[in-house]
């Protein structure tokens, strides 16, 4: 099992919902309205007057074989328009109850 943490511009919300259904991933946790900025480029998403855009964050735990498909999908969404912004990070899951 791997955990995938996806941070995305709120403007991608619907695409994300669709993506999870499309990939047949049932479980995830979403935080709405979170802020942050990218390491290299792109506008900060701070929800302020200066930087009005905002992010949502999703944490999902998936089978190891689904990770690549998920990352592929995220990459495709990012390709629609890189300015909007979406990133995914993967960790190992040690234990679960």
């Amino acid at each position, binding site marked *: 099992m791997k955990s995938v943490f996806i941070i995305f511009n709120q403007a*991608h919300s619907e695409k994300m919902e669709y993506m999870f259904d499309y990939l047949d991933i049932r479980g995830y946790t979403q935080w709405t309205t979170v802020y942050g900025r990218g390491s290299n480029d792109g506008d900060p998403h701070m929800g302020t007057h200066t930087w009005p855009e905002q992010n949502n964050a999703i944490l999902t735990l998936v089978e190891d074989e689904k990770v690549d498909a998920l990352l592929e999908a995220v990459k495709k969404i990012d390709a629609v*328009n890189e300015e909007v912004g979406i990133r995914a990070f993967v960790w190992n899951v040690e234990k679960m109850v």
Partner: protein
Amino acid sequence: MSIYSSAVKKPVTTLMIFIAIIVLGIYSVYKLPVDLYPEIEIPSITVFTTYPGASAKDIEANISEPIEDGLNTVDDLKEISSVSRDNLSIVILEFEFETDLSEAANNIRDGLAFVEDELPDAAEDPQIFKFNSSMMPIQMFAITADENYEGLEKLLEEIFVNPLNRIEGIGSVSVVATPTREIAVEFNPRRLEAYNLTIEQIGQILAAENMNMPTGNIEMGKMDYPLRVEGEFKSSDYIENVVISNVQGKAIYLKDVATVRDSIREMTMDEKINGKKGVRMMVMKQSGANTVNIAKQVNAKMEELKANLPPDVKVQTIFDSSDFIKGSINNLTKTLMFAMLFVIVVVLFFLGRWRATFIVVLTIPISLIVTFIYLRLTGNSINIISLSALAIAIGMVVDDAIVVLENISKHIERGSSPREAAIYATNEVWLAVVITTLTVVAVFFPMTMVGGMTGIMFRQLGWIVTITVTTSTLAAISLTPMLSSKLLRLKKKHKKPGKFSYDRTIRPMLDKFDNWYARVLRWSLSHKRIIILAALGIVIGTVLLAPRLGTEFMPQTDEDRFNISVELQAGVRVDESVKIANKIDSILFNKFPQVELVSTSAGADDEGGFLSMFRSTGSNIINYTVRLENSSERDTSIWEIMEAVRKELKVFPEIVKYNVTTGGGMSGGMAQNNIDLEIYGYDLEKSTRLADQLADSVRNIPGARDIKISREDEKPELQVDLDRRKLAANGLNTAMVSSALYNRVEGLTATQYREQGEEYDVVLRFKKEYRNSISDIKNIDVQTPMGTFVRLGELGEIKEYYAPPNIERKRRERIVTVSATPYKISMGELASQMQEIIENTDVPTGFMVEVGGAYEDQQEGFQDLALLLVLSLVLVYLVMASQFESLKMPFIIMFSIPFAFTGVVIALLIAGKPLSIIAALGAVMLVGIVVKNAIVLVDYINLMRDRGHPLADAIVLSGRSRLRPVLMTAVTTILGMLPLALSTGEGSEIWSPMGISVIGGLIASTIITMVIVPVVYMLFTRSGERNKKAKLRKNYEFLD
């Protein structure tokens, strides 16, 4: 959940809410009455007191003064004035606007209760009278007749007056100067003397003859019969055969001493319509009833009723005040439609997409229609003010929707789905949209608090713009995102756009313009000194130009009719007046082809009723109402025609005074433009002389017309001075003599002759040739209680003397006003010239001269507006300071305001219009619109700097990017106002100055905002000032 995400997620609910608003709005439109102005209650109450037999001076001292003193402390009283005439005192109490008049009337009643004891016993109780606009006729018809002239009264009563009175909302229908049937018994005094008879005796005999009387019941057999004596005259021929006396056994018939005429009453007023004999019929509405609606019903009914008229009776309309209202409203509605069309074209031009344009434009009808719901709920009407308010709002209501839509499209172009884009893009801008709306509201909302006469007009305007703009903002953050989510699509980029497509025609043009502006901006930023000097020059230039701008209160309107009042030598007989009237009539018809109808009335009507309060009448006065062709059909304006008429009247040697004035009355006194010189002082002779002197000087001012002195000329009177000793010797008293005199000259109404249910007076008096000279009067026989006769000449003397017919007072002092109206010069200019005359005149001690009249209202109006401007500026500053969280930014933005006023001054000068209250109102409104543009720009510059762009770059970048939205806002408003400014025809004089001032101000301020505001911004700020990182570093140096 926020309003916009709910709206997008529940599109059907959103749609239903807005459809509900539209349905309610349309319902309200159909139910709303149409009127010229919002309803105005004139805050004045009049107290009438009659004191028969008293002269103007007596009335002043015994009635007017005590009443004034008693009522001076009534609550909310603004000014007290009075007119004392022979027999009548009129005290006018003017209250502050919005005083509860019924409460005021109660206070007056209480006040009068204290005064009543001081009034002479013979005076009648004071009557309280509230002026009401419903007392002014809304329609006036001229009815002419040939053969049927003598029976016109009864004819009109049956055919018109009674059926029209049944229309709901009609106050009254009255007919002026109808010939009234009267049975005149005219005596030869010599014959009366011969038979030892008096008029009073004969009157008693006639009354005793002309009677029906029940005289009891008779029971005969099984029946009960009532018994009656039927002695009433069956026809007027019977009257002359009444036996009035027996002399030496012979019966004396009435025809032996008098002639009996069954004809019409002697007229003291001559009424002609287009030179033909006729009468005038006036229609008054009930207060609160709707003019247009009633006039429509009256006209329809009249058409129907005309069929019953004999062929020689013709009906013409002298005026129909609903025509002007309907014309103005139609005109304004058309203007509104054009404005809407222009706005749509502009939006399409800048957006270049049909669907986007549709979404934006949809906010126009929705926000405008809410106005009608508001008007309906508050009981207002569709009128010039409410429609002009809509015309102003029309360019502003699309702004918010455009901002929202632009951001949504940006998101869609970046690949978001329309639904996501609608929610998140609105989330980014909604606050900014609400704040710009707040600045507009900050300007318009204070208008709802203006008091006085100007307040009545501005309050509605303030509310309407506030409501429409607020609605448009609500629509922009709910309906616009919802529709965008449904209608907007990601446009596929055409590889090769068509030759005439938007992308190859307008877009490159706009891009080029953006680039050009960026270059201009960069140049200005590096030549700050030149720009600032030029700006200063413009402001100073405006200050220098401004005095050349004339001022006026309300623009004068061309209502297609004017009044002429001609005064001949005091005391002239009606017959003589009629001769002059006929001459003037023919001049009006022959020299002025624009004249359609002339209604003339010469002389005084003893029962002229209410109208005679406004028009002075007298045997020497001729009043005309002239109706012209519709203003759109003639080239010459009403003022030019009036001026030409004045020239014609000047050549008549018989005419002492003449005044040519516009329609009036209808607009509730708002359209007056007279300037008064008010002369306060006690001495009647001196003040009359001073008034004459001032009037002469005013006549020398080139632009002064219709110079009037309020104190009427002294008129000759005959006074019978009785010698009390001689009276006593004959056993007579004053009352007996005066009633004898009255019965012989004016006439004794002895009885009524009845015919077909109508009663006609039987009046006994001397034949005309026996009451035509002073010696005739001296020869009148008065019977003493002993039965002997004395000639009036034996009892006293008859003297001719002059008396002032009226004494006016204001603020409890005697006053005479000299008034003038401006022609081809502005009111402000005329007022200052008249002020000069006062300074150059040697005013005697005990006298004071002041400038007043409509000029006073104008000054008050401008003061109110100035206050409003200050209030708006303060509120706008507050809103902006909190928006930018800065005390400095609002100043930068407000730098654009003076230039808006520059534009107003220049535009008005070019158009040749004076600065009226309406034009000044346009200038106040500009504050909101202009500031809005500057906010958009400054806000963006701040944003760019916060995002790390260096100062100069941030300014140029923002200017370039905000040019289109600013232009769009400005151009929609300018084009929205253009039809208003250019409109001609009925009523356009009222609103076109507002259009002109807004357009001028907006053009100037937009151009200047885009250059000066960035330059001022640069001057007021330091580079790196907004670099928060640098600031923070100071606090956290320990980390280094």
